[in-house]
């Protein structure tokens, strides 16, 4: 038996109120008027008698009512104070365990387990516990329970994974758990090496004010680590011989001293080159491997350095795209002049690595097979098809295909023609009389204009005498304009692919661009950028999602460990069939079944930030968080809450008894001689004044 809020017991001072009221005599305020006290003052009456308490029953009733009210506010409870009182109440602890790659450094994971065990040992039997395992994503490994052994069992089976760190994910998962926590002192314990690189994403976190966040820092002072942080791969053609040239960047952090490291280049599982290098205590070294003959098809490569305390970042996986020629489907109108596309075809044929192979098609022949083979569709002065063919083309673009529409005099002469949602035609501009138009402005940072960053004057030479005017749609980027402001090149992203509109004349009749030096690199960049060839990264990071390109139906993914995934694709097509790269290595995508050459291959590596073991200040965790109201206020009572309330509901009984006492006081005060006295007093007073 005790009180939850014993401070309210100070209210017992209020017992003096009824006592003073009885001593003061309420009749002072409504005296009984009498003609003269001439005789009454002669009566031998002691003043003590006049001031004495004359109505003990009423006084006791009132004092008891006040005392009960005070006790009710003090919240009496039954049971032990430890179980009920606010300060010593049951704890509800969210144990958030960092299992990112960096936790595998040296003995860090063992320390983390020790910290977690110590936390579990410190919990009382009735304390609630839940477990969150997090890396760059967070998983509730065990919900709220008082069975600490069950949580301990889950904890013992956990191990670091090859993934990055995102404290934001962990804290949000913990936030979700505390929202459903039983009524108790809420606490989140973060067991982590607290990598600074994992702080991204904590800004904007809504953190309840009544939840305590504690961090258990693990990992010793020794944070020496070396890693392969980046690899630059390119396929180089020397005559007819294709080679692969690989450069790797090796980063060292907080090494005790310089040390030699051997870096090996592995292509398709075979070590093809190796280099020795000396790593400084902290710094980066670039390793340039000799060019090696490129195997056919997609090359799976890796740069590996000697293992250290954190072996997970000592290998960097990458892929090299096959040297197959880019297939472009050039769809030309039926009335195409004989040499109309001559300059374009010749320009695209010149490039190597990759080479560009044009497949000329007529409108209506752009079937699914053609799209499967093509990396880009080039519509020469014709509008994108409508109907089923148009839907097929749109789906193909969203899946990663590239569509380039050249708007020449045929299309430009028709007003209001919709061009794949990127723009509409607005007629033709004829500048033959004024010496022609020139480039007005362009976006030099765009990949399309990469060749002209050092020679921008090259774009000022071409003259354009007759060209189409376009009205860009909302969301369409204008990459270049002519000197009259008319859009010349436009781009619009559609899913994984893109649509590019070109209003520049690509033949020698309406302009002289094909005759200028800028034509060849501009068309080459148009093919590479439009097909998305150059946007394919050689490696991705774990935690990213991957949507394999070129897989049109029933994708099957083989994971690095040999496991097979069959991602669900929606009715809209295979474009939604994406998977999360959850471990380093190579992911291969097939159609329908694992057979033959994979349609797509991607390399995944641990995020480079995971190799940086620089520790953050625990206070930085909630630096960007917003503090919300106490989370317990909006919760409904759980089973434990009902039990708690049951032990505290004595206050209700006290209030009920107090109400009964007040009723008894009213009855007692209004009946018998008290009531008569009251009525007589009131009557006397009223009539006397009247």
């Amino acid at each position, binding site marked *: 038996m005790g009180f939850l809020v014993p401070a309210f017991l100070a209210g017992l001072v209020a017992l003096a109120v009824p006592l003073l009221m009885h001593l003061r*005599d309420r009749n*002072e305020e409504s005296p*009984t008027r009498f003609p003269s006290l001439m005789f009454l003052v*002669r*009566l031998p009456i002691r003043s003590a008698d*006049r001031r004495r308490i004359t109505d003990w029953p009423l006084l006791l009733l009132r004092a008891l009512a006040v005392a009960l009210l005070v006790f009710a506010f003090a919240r009496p409870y039954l049971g032990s104070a430890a179980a009920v009182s606010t300060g010593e109440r049951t704890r509800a602890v969210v144990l958030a365990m960092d299992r990112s790659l960096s936790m595998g450094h040296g003995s860090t994971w063992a320390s983390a387990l020790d910290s977690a065990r110590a936390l579990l040992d410190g919990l009382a039997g009735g304390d609630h516990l839940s477990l969150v395992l997090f890396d760059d994503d967070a998983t509730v490994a065990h919900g709220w329970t008082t069975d600490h052994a069950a949580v301990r069992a889950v904890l013992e089976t956990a191990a670091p994974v090859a993934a990055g760190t995102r404290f934001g994910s962990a804290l949000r998962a913990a936030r979700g758990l505390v929202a459903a926590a039983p009524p108790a002192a809420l606490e989140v314990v973060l067991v982590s090496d607290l990598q600074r690189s994992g702080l991204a994403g904590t800004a904007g976190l809504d953190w309840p004010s009544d939840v305590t966040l504690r961090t258990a820092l693990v990992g010793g002072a020794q944070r020496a680590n070396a890693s392969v942080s980046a690899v630059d791969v390119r396929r180089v053609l020397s005559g007819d011989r294709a080679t692969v040239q690989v450069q790797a960047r090796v980063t060292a952090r907080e090494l005790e001293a310089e040390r030699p490291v051997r870096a090996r280049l592995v292509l398709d599982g075979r070590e093809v080159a190796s280099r020795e290098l000396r790593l400084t205590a902290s710094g980066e070294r670039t390793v340039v491997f000799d060019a090696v003959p490129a195997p056919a098809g997609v090359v799976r490569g890796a740069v590996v350095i000697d293992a250290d305390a954190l072996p997970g970042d000592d290998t960097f996986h990458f892929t090299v795209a096959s040297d197959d020629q880019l297939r472009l489907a050039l769809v030309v109108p039926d009335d195409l002049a004989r040499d109309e596309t001559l300059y374009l075809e010749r320009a695209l044929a010149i490039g190597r690595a990759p080479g560009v192979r044009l497949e000329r098609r007529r409108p209506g022949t752009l079937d699914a097979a053609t799209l499967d083979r093509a990396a880009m569709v080039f519509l020469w002065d014709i509008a994108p098809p409508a109907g089923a063919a148009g839907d097929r083309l749109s789906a193909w673009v969203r899946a990663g295909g590239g569509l380039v529409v050249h708007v020449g005099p045929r299309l430009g002469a028709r007003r209001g023609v919709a061009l794949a949602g990127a723009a509409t035609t607005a007629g033709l501009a004829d500048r033959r009389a004024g010496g022609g138009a020139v480039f007005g402005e362009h976006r030099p940072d765009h990949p399309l204009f990469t060749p002209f960053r050092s020679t921008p004057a090259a774009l000022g030479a071409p003259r354009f005498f007759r060209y189409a005017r376009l009205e860009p749609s909302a969301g369409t980027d204008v990459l270049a304009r002519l000197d009259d402001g008319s859009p010349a090149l436009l781009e619009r992203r559609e899913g994984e692919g893109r649509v590019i509109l070109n209003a520049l004349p690509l033949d020698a009749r309406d302009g002289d661009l094909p005759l200028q030096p800028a034509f060849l690199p501009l068309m080459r960049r148009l093919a590479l950028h439009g097909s998305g060839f150059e946007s394919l990264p050689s490696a991705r990071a774990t935690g990213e999602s991957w949507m394999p390109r070129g897989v049109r139906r029933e994708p099957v993914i083989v994971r690095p460990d040999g496991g097979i995934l069959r991602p669900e694709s929606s009715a809209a097509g295979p474009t939604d069939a994406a998977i999360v790269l959850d471990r380093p290595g190579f992911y291969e995508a097939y159609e329908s079944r694992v057979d033959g050459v994979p349609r797509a291959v991607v390399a995944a590596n641990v995020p480079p930030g995971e190799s940086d073991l620089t520790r953050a200040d625990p206070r930085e965790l909630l630096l960007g968080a917003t503090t919300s109201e106490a989370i317990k206020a909006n919760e409904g009572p759980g089973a434990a809450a009902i039990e708690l309330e049951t032990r505290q509901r004595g206050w209700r009984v006290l209030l009920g008894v107090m109400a009964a006492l007040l009723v008894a006081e009213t009855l007692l005060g209004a009946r018998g*001689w008290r009531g*008569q*006295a009251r009525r*007589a007093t009131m009557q006397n007073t009223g009539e006397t004044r009247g």
Partner: protein
Amino acid sequence: MSIAPSTLLDPALLARIADLPLLARTVVDGFLHGLHRSARKGLSLDFAEHRPYQPGDDLRRIDWKAYARTDRFYVKEYDADTNAACVLALDCSGSMDYASAGVNKFAYARMLVASLAWLAQRQGDRVGLATFSEQLLEAIPPSTRHLQMILHALARAAPKGEGTIPVGVDRVADLASRPGIVIIVTDCYDEPASMGRAVDTLRARGHDVLVFHLIDPAEEEFGFTGPLVFEDGERGTRLPLRPEETRERYLALWKAHREALQKRMAASGADYVVLRTDRPLDAALHRYLDHRLSSGRVR
């Protein structure tokens, strides 16, 4: 349906009549009607004296023979007109402002004085009025024509302050140029000795004194219960008491006071009459007429 005359004298009923002259006439007529004898009892037509004519006097009462002799107007006065000079002294102290259940003591006293004035006027007496509390508040000398003034003065009077008879009694005695009847209406909250001395003063001037002691039933019974705080009606002082415990002692003191008053008044030759405010007024009127006849003031 006829109404018994005594009903008309019920103080509770009369208290509802705001018009004091009407009230007084109602009381007196009802009273005289109940006497079943001449309303002109004691009235005499014997010549008493001449007095100079004053504007307003009835021309029929001019003594033309005297005019012929003296060439001046004289009015003949008869004994009936000058039977007695009656001075009504009303206690207007705060203690009079009290009513436990029925009629307020002061209201009762006012009705009583008005009725006595009306009755005296009907009897041919000269009537005067004196109101007093700590001092003499208002004085109207006795006259046969001052009835309306008296009634107006009564209407204006209000109970307030402390009241002691000795303070104003000399002035009351001076009001009447000749010895007459002095009727004191008071609640007698004064020492019997002091009151006796005051009455002695009046008696020494040749006045007959009639003291009406007004009491409220609560003063005589003291039936209060429960712890109460009593407030003095005159001074405002307060006294917390348990009435049940003090009733007997109070009543003993009260009884002793009345007995002392009675003895002292008797010793002074004054007529002492106790009037309860819940009793009709006719007892007081009877007492007045009896006193008037027995005192020999009616010639």
